[in-house]
């Protein structure tokens, strides 16, 4: 198995880009502490964002992890954990 090593910063940029892509309008000062509820995205958009991460990096993220997401940092952390675990 090929080990995937992606920096946390790269993942963060990827996630922020995806959030902006699926938002009605770019969220001002979007950052890791931004609550997901404040961003104009639906829960299904969040699932789509995770789907993009999964497809791009060939990982499978557990549904339970997605349901625990409350701020942007959670998305980055979860993605980072899966991408850089074995």
């Amino acid at each position, binding site marked *: 198995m090929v080990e995937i090593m992606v920096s946390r910063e790269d993942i963060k940029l990827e996630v922020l880009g995806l959030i902006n*892509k699926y*938002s*009605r*309008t770019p969220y001002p000062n979007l950052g890791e502490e931004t609550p997901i509820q404040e961003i104009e995205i639906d829960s299904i*958009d969040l*699932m*789509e964002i995770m*789907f993009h991460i999964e497809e791009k990096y060939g990982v499978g993220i557990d549904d339970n992890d997605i349901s625990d997401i409350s701020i942007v940092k959670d998305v980055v952390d979860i993605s980072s954990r899966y991408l850089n675990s074995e």
Partner: protein
Amino acid sequence: MGRVVITGIGLITPLGHSWDDFGVRIINGDSGIKPTQLTDGDREFNIPTARIEDFDPEEELPNCKVASLGRNSHLSVFAARNALAMSGLEGGDVSGLVVGVSSPSNEVLDDGYRRLFSGSGRASPIFIPKAMTNAPVSAVSIDLGITGFSYSVASACSSANHAIINAALYIQSGHAKTVLCGASDAGLTFSNLNAWNGMRVLAQDTCRPFCKTRSGIVLGEGAVFFMLEDQQHAEKRGARILAVLDGWGQSSDSFSMTTPHVEGIERAIFGAVESANWTSEKVDYFNSHGTGTPLNDLAENDALFGVFGKPADKILVSSTKSVHGHLLGASGGIELAATLAAITRHKIPPTMNMVEKDDRINLSVVSENAENEHVKRALSASYAFGGHNTVLAVSAPM
């Protein structure tokens, strides 16, 4: 009964992104049809199409969730915003919304099924809401803040006219004062064009309605929306009235999935004329379905003579599909727009590419040498696979 008037139009078509551009180009006979090469991996498919150019939804649709929508929804939102803006109404003023579609979002289906069958084997979470047949109407409802009734109608190439008729019925019956309606189609994909080509109905050169050397349909894409309004409501608020929707006719062939049926078309034309309380002498212009297939053109010719008798040869007829292609679910929308251009610009949009008229066509087909005409009353016809016939009767405001 409320009288139905048109107080707004918005469109995005192969002949322009604005009502003004479209009006100039359709009257000039400018063509939106171009040779097109579609590819799938190393496979190529070359066919003429009428494609929308210079439209970047990210740029053109600010404050819209573009990534979550398919192309037919992008086109719908763009056209609906412009129809609403022209009407001078706000989304919250609009009683309801009806949108015609002929299929789910083609490119979304392609991408989704490709991923499922030959990619990762998984479906995107937004595959269904992005592809679903009612996505365009929902996208418009969300975008414009329309909270009354909203739904889509699907009757193949009569979808737009059925949407318009549905909207008009609400106003005529007094159930609504303002209804936004229209249609959208964006099916110029490798898969859809090949599927149509399987029926051997696609022209390989261009669309030549009523021409001896015609070879079939050219598919196009676009969205066209109209604000229909109760006349008194429109007058009271000082709205500009583009035209009056005097009547409409609908029929089913109950005959064949694909073969046009003269009697069915006759019933729809007759229904439109009767409901508008017109006679043949009152019809200045007939925007035909005019697909450019021999079966359609001859059936349409015979149906007009069947309804009007010999005076049918006095009615000026054109097929604007010769320049904007066949927009399938949205064809009735773009053809009503062409008909409104005839009424507002006092000239018949020509039938282009008619090198030599088919001897069996006895109608007065307007070609590129169109003279100025004062068009007061006009019919716009759409018929569909499945045998759904629809004809709209529109007139200039008094």
